[in-house]
């Protein structure tokens, strides 16, 4: 292990790439723990939007059962848009983002850490609460399991694509609405495969192709989006 000697004469060790990755995640989770309201508002928003649909279209169970996957997915999409603004803006405003850009390690890795933390704070809670909402729509147990599976695969993609939008709109006026405008069209494939899988299990067909395609999208996003987001951050910080 390389050692850094410093002004106080104290000995500190050099942080590895994964150390940095872990540090960023721990930091974002710690910050979120200190302002819990942010996480809760996203979750409450999600629950509210889903609960509004039966009020809007009427309580016929047949229709609701049919609509459920689409409603949950669209609400998840909107809820993740809502939380995107927070992904980089606080760090941008207080100067931490500048320090992140100066980190002597891969900015992509650091960005990936932020994406993972963002997903744990905004995507994962949605996945966990979704089955309860599915019950509101009288979804069968089998469909609920599939819903959880596809949300687990799909919500990280939303965070990753969202990260690009959030980085591009950093510090812009009306950034919140703008980011939705940029990101929502790019999220359409996730919506299609995500709802497709649940519909497939409802009609007794195989879910494999939908899940496989979502998995492929997840891998693709995992490879490219951190790097693209890092470039976007550099552009926005200039």
């Amino acid at each position, binding site marked *: 292990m390389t050692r850094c000697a410093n002004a106080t004469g104290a000995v500190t060790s050099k942080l590895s790439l994964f150390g940095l990755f872990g540090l960023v995640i721990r930091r974002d989770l710690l910050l979120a723990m200190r302002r819990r309201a942010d996480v809760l508002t996203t979750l409450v928003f999600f629950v509210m939007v889903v609960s509004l649909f039966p009020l809007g279209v009427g309580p016929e169970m047949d229709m609701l059962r049919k609509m459920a996957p689409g409603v949950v997915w669209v609400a998840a999409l909107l809820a993740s848009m809502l939380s995107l603004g927070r992904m980089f803006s606080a760090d941008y405003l207080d100067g931490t983002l500048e320090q992140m850009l100066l980190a002597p390690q891969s900015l992509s890795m650091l960005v990936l850490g932020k994406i993972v933390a963002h997903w744990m704070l905004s995507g994962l809670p949605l996945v966990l609460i979704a089955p309860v909402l599915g019950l509101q729509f009288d979804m069968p147990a089998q469909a609920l399991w599939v819903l959880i599976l596809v949300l687990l695969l799909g919500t990280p993609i939303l965070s990753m694509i969202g990260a690009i939008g959030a980085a*591009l*709109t950093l510090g812009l006026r009306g950034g919140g609405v703008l980011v939705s405008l*940029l990101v929502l069209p790019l999220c*359409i494939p996730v919506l*299609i495969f995500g709802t497709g899988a649940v519909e497939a299990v409802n009609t007794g067909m195989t879910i494999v192709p939908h899940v496989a395609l979502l998995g492929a999208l997840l891998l693709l996003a995992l490879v490219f989006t951190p790097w693209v987001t890092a470039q976007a951050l550099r552009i926005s910080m200039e």
Partner: protein
Amino acid sequence: MAINWFKYSAPTAFYGLAGKMIPWFAVPAAVLFMVGMYIGFFVAPTDAIQSEAYRIIFIHVPASILSMFIYLIMAGYAALGLIFNTRLSSMMATALAPTGALFAFISLWTGALWGKPMWGAWWVWDARLTSELILLFLYLGFIALQSSIEDPRRADRAGALLAIVGSVNVPIIYFSVKWWNTLHQGATIKFTGTSMHVAMQQAMFIMLLACWLYVIAVTLARVRSIILERERNTQWVNELKEVRS
């Protein structure tokens, strides 16, 4: 002043060149447009199944084709600008976006007009129409992002990144929408005639050509105004006779 003149020279030279080139594209565009319309509406025979309503394809099809091509060309220019830091390429990308959005909109509009007699509904969730709608959203996102960034350099580079991400996504979106469409047995708008009449082919081809020429002319004109706007503080712009008068 130690300005890197190489970087500035391209837009400077291009401004004059573009001005000279515009009539060479605009005039043929207008002529071909009229010829194409004439063949399409008066020479081409009535379709056996769709009767007169099919004639909308002479606008709809070129508009759809161009809206997709323009996105790719735009992304290409934007990428060039991003990689090689050439300002003119970025300006071209910015100039192409509104025209692409316009064609996407025309394609949707004419698609709706076509859908009404064919399907009895103004809008059907046909795979191609839906993709076209998403494409329009992508254009609008690009335009919105660029116009909300004040610093032109950041606007160019941020827009370029978005356009590249968008163009990687376009095939995925198209495929997923098609997949969604087949699962739901949605409507498909297709030209049902087994073989196209020669006059129909001619009209279609001429209209396509006219649209291409229009795109070039209008993009050049828009690039000229972007150059003027961005270089308004430079000496050469203030010496232009159209600026001084």
